[in-house]
């Protein structure tokens, strides 16, 4: 009996740690009108065109980040495992850099490096720079997820099998490697998505109309709406992740199995 008690006890403590603030925020967000519980704050948030615009902007940015980092990282991780295994420690070191280099430093060095190029003197250019920064931020998560995924299949023999059947590198990547790391890629994508949706520093410094700066602005100017927004963004982020998962399900089911 006691054996069952302690695991549950710690589980409950952990769950409360996450759920109580969430509940408190939710509860607070319902009290916009004095003396009654209402969704007034939610209505205010959802009626704000800035909310929709910034959320949509960050959503697109997140998708672009995921696609670009997948296109860069899968071939890289594949090649490193296949041909340059000795480079692996070096790459692993690189994956730690985004944790070590503060976002402020990252964005200033990028801005300096690319100043007076189309990347810094146009709206689109800055967006590209933003995505570039996010690709760097997501690098550790994406690389490690893909690297683990690649290790669970025998890329060496699969590559040679495909080659002997006439496939070139592009075909091998597109038809053999990508489909088989899809599941791993999805797990990296979820984290990337969550990071990009909430990111503040880089987006603010690049003056981008992103969701993070919007939340921040709202938090400093309103009382109940920020809480409502927190709950909404929490729900939307989860919904978006569920959607990615659902879209990926088809491909996922095909490679599932006891491996």
């Amino acid at each position, binding site marked *: 009996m006691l054996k069952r008690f302690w695991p549950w006890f710690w589980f409950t403590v952990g769950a409360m740690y996450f759920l109580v603030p969430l509940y408190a925020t939710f509860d607070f967000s319902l009290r916009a009108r004095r003396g009654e519980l209402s969704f007034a704050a939610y209505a205010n948030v959802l009626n704000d065109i800035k909310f929709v615009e910034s959320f949509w902007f960050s959503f697109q940015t997140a998708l672009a980040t995921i696609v670009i980092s997948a296109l860069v990282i899968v071939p890289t991780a594949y090649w490193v495992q296949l041909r340059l295994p000795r480079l692996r420690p070096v790459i692993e070191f690189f994956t730690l850099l985004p944790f070590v280099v503060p976002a402020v430093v990252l964005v200033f060095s990028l801005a300096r490096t690319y100043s007076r190029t189309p990347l810094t003197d146009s709206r689109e250019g800055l967006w590209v720079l933003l995505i570039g920064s996010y690709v760097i931020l997501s690098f550790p998560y994406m690389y490690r997820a893909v690297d683990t995924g690649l290790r669970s299949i025998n890329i060496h023999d699969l590559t040679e099998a495909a080659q002997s059947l006439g496939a070139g590198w592009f075909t091998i990547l597109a038809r053999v490697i990508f489909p*088989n790391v899809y599941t791993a890629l999805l797990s990296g994508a979820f984290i990337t998505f969550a990071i990009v949706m909430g990111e503040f520093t880089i987006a603010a410094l690049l003056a981008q109309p992103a969701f993070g700066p919007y939340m921040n602005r709202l938090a400093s100017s309103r009382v109940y709406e920020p809480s409502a927004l927190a709950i909404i963004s929490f729900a939307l982020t989860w919904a978006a992740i569920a959607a990615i998962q659902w879209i990926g399900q088809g491909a996922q089911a095909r*490679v599932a199995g006891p491996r």
Partner: protein
Amino acid sequence: MAFLELVNVRKSFGASVAVENFNLAVERGEFVSFLGPSGCGKTTTLRMVAGFEKPTAGRIVIDGVDVTDTPPNRRNIGMVFQSYALFPNMTVADNIGFGLKIARRPADEIRARVEELLRIIHMSEFGRRYPYQLSGGQQQRVALARALAIQPKLLLLDEPLSALDAKIRASLRQEIREIQRQLGITTIYVTHDQEEAMALSDRIVVMSRGRIEQIGTPFEVYNFPATRFVASFVGTLNLLQATVVDAAIGLVSVEGQSIRVARPLTQHRSGDAVSLALRPELIALDGQINSEVNRLSGTVEDVTFLGSIVRVRVRLSANKLHFDLFNNPQLRPPQPGSLITVQFAPEACLVLGEDASPAHPMSASAAQAA
């Protein structure tokens, strides 16, 4: 000109040499095995034929075309791996059709060819399964079908059965051989299992430490080993320490007991230390062969009952000797500790030099037979 030719092929990894002085000519439709212990360079040689490794020196010619510098995806060679290497994200049918899809064949043709191959490997109902839903033997059959689908010039198999259990291994190897005969496809089969190589091959290439020791039919390799290595690697063998008594008439002595071999020992002089090699199945209990025979006497040390065969170990004084008797319920097998005399024909004796040099009376006839 042979269909596949390896000419003076050599491969080194840094300072270490994996394959050296490799010359081989394989005829169209032939089934050739590479046989040798682990690390002897079988896989490396096969991978050079496939194009996954580039020879350090030498040439590889397939069907009259020098492919030494051709990348693997342009060689049109079917490859089967020990690990099966089926694409986990594709069904059995898609796996088999992969090569044809790459070659942009029309969908109808692909479907027909896939069905044909599924029939050949007796797996017609499995087209829609995924690899993880198949047993190891089934996966390897699919891998074989996938390699054959592109109608390759050559079929290369690298220890395809090593991951399977003994029963399936025996039946699948027969199946591989039948399909190979049926399609008449030129095949190279890598194995370290001599029984597998014997059962399957038209010819066997016995390798050791990156070099070819002997090329010959299973019959030649087993009965007329060209080197000491081949003699001891292929089949089981008794090796007895002996001394040459009279090289001219082929007389040696094993612990003082005289043994006559079938031919003069041209490469030895009287007094040389040699090894006398004897296959266990060519030794019999004394009295069962009537012609002029060699005899050796010793003490029965151990008797092992192996079913159809009873293997007897005899100790002379310094040497040990195995031989086989057929199981016979009417006959009591020899008892450990008892004295025993065995006999064998002079033709059963191979004399091997102390070094690795080929030196036995049969090498002349082996060369003729080859």
